[in-house]
């Protein structure tokens, strides 16, 4: 079996950034494994713009952003295999993959998990009705339209107002479809305001908040959907049903980190994020196995995926070059009072280099509040935030000196407080 220093599983923005960063730290015996026929990951189908504002100070489309990193991989001659599906990762870091040439197995000194996420499927929703053709997840429709050149249908209803749903509302309209409504269960949209304006308002597409689809109508092909209002407990209100004729329903109802391989490797996962439980170096509970990007926690901005993944790549390189990092332990980072989760979940103060980025999401919309970080009982960081929403991931950067000046800390807390 071939031995290798680093395997990066996934050639999307996370895997590309991690591989480049590892290479920059001196790792040369590395390999990116990508199951699609091209590098670039989900960015290849995200043909809209808005990417790269932080990283490149430009507004790029998804493919352009991906191309920046693909170019870096090519410039450095970093080896990669496309059309190669990783089928298994063992706790001993043996990677088993298959492609047209056959099967390959690699015993890796270090692995970076960068498999991204997938969409919550329609089967999970249990909407009553037959199972006609015409119901797709928004990302599937995006692939059909943007990569394969097919129109999934002409009269569309979209369930879910996350960014993917909003983007597809516009995309389908630009390709000549009629989008009758975007239906959102919650009383607020999960997507960016910019997308509400430029994808819905611009095209006069109604957004029905506090509504859901309660019936799918059509035997062979979708004919229409029944949409109902919901109450404060998100239970459909009898008598509020409205029938909307359509031939296509797109579902934008959540993204799930794709961790089958992580489970196979006995990587500990968080029930809140769906991704690995990691420390400050983004190492999982399995030594030498690191996670980054959407497989770790679902991001909104690819710029932060690149930042996070570069850190994972750097740390994988350190591990390869001899850093003795035993998994586990570390000071726990606790999310409370409005903070839904934090990544990392624990921090070993002795391993902090210049600083640590703590990324997190809030549970609700907060206006005029502060982000606060406590080391045991003492507040060490406070930042006012005009607005905090579940749809925008936040970052707190703690410099090394904060850890040095609080050596006996037993617990780090991140919370939201009123001003």
């Amino acid at each position, binding site marked *: *079996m071939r031995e290798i220093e680093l395997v990066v599983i996934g050639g999307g923005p996370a895997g590309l950034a991690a591989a480049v960063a590892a290479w920059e730290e001196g790792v040369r015996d590395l390999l990116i494994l990508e199951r699609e026929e091209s590098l670039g990951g989900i960015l290849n189908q995200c043909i809209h713009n808005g990417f790269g504002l932080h990283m490149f100070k430009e507004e790029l489309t998804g*493919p352009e952003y991906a*191309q920046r990193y693909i170019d870096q991989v090519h410039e450095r001659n970093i*080896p990669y*295999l496309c059309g190669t599906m990783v089928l298994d990762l063992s706790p001993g870091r043996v990677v088993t993959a298959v492609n047209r040439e*056959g*099967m390959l197995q690699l015993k890796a000194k270090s692995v970076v998990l960068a498999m991204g996420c997938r969409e919550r499927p329609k089967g999970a929703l249990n909407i009553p009705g037959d199972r006609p053709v015409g119901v797709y997840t928004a990302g599937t429709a995006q692939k059909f339209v943007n*990569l*394969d050149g097919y129109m999934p249908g002409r009269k569309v209803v979209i369930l879910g107002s996350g960014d993917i749903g909003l983007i597809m509302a516009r995309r389908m309209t*630009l390709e000549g479809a009629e989008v009758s409504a975007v239906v959102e269960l919650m009383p607020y949209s999960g997507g960016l305001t910019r997308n509400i304006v430029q994808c819905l308002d611009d095209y006069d597409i109604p957004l029905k908040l506090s509504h859901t689809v309660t019936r799918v109508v059509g035997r062979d092909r979708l004919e229409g959907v029944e949409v109902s209002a919901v109450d404060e407990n998100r239970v459909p209100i009898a008598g509020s049903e409205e029938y909307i004729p359509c031939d296509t329903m797109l579902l934008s109802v959540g993204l799930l980190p794709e961790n089958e391989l992580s489970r196979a490797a006995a990587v500990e996962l968080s029930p809140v994020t769906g991704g690995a439980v990691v420390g400050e170096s983004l190492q999982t509970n399995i030594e030498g196995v690191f996670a980054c990007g959407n497989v770790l926690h679902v991001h909104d901005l690819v710029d932060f995926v690149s930042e996070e993944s570069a850190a994972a790549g750097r740390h994988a390189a350190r591990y390869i070059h001899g850093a003795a990092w035993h998994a586990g332990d570390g000071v726990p980072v606790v999310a409370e009072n409005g903070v839904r989760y934090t990544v990392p979940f624990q921090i070993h103060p002795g391993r902090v280099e210049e600083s640590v980025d703590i990324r997190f999401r809030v549970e609700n919309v907060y206006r005029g509040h502060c982000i606060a970080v406590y080391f045991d009982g003492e507040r060490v960081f406070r930042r006012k935030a005009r607005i905090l929403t579940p749809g925008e991931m936040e970052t707190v950067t703690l410099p090394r000196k904060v850890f040095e000046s609080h050596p006996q800390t037993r617990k780090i807390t991140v919370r939201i407080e009123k001003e």
Partner: protein
Amino acid sequence: MIRHITCIRCPMGCYLTVRLEEGKEPDVFGNQCRLGVQYARTECTNPTRMLTSTVRLENARQLAMAPVKSAAPLPKHRVMECARALKNIRVRPPLRVSDIIVENICNTGVDIICTRDIADNNERAGMAFGQNNPTQKVRKRNEV
């Protein structure tokens, strides 16, 4: 005339009221910062939007469409017209980011440009153009 718009310059999403009068700069209310004023003025007098779409590849194999964008923002009211104009265009690889696909779309003065490198055999789209890609060696020697 009074118009109401949502500002998109930051996640606050301030609800802006804009008073438009002939010959005067629009008055903006409801903003919590300067960015909102500028956004509201432009949005009410000369709204523009970027167009991002796809164009069909001839000889489509694994990839059927080339992603494209307008090289600059278009007048908002002309976006659908320009999107429709792309329907019957066909392009052939090889293509590189920023290659011009359509010059001066619908006489707007704005070009439509490519946003992805697409290799000429359109098969291994992730492979470099004519570079000696070291993965070739690894591919042929899948060790079991």
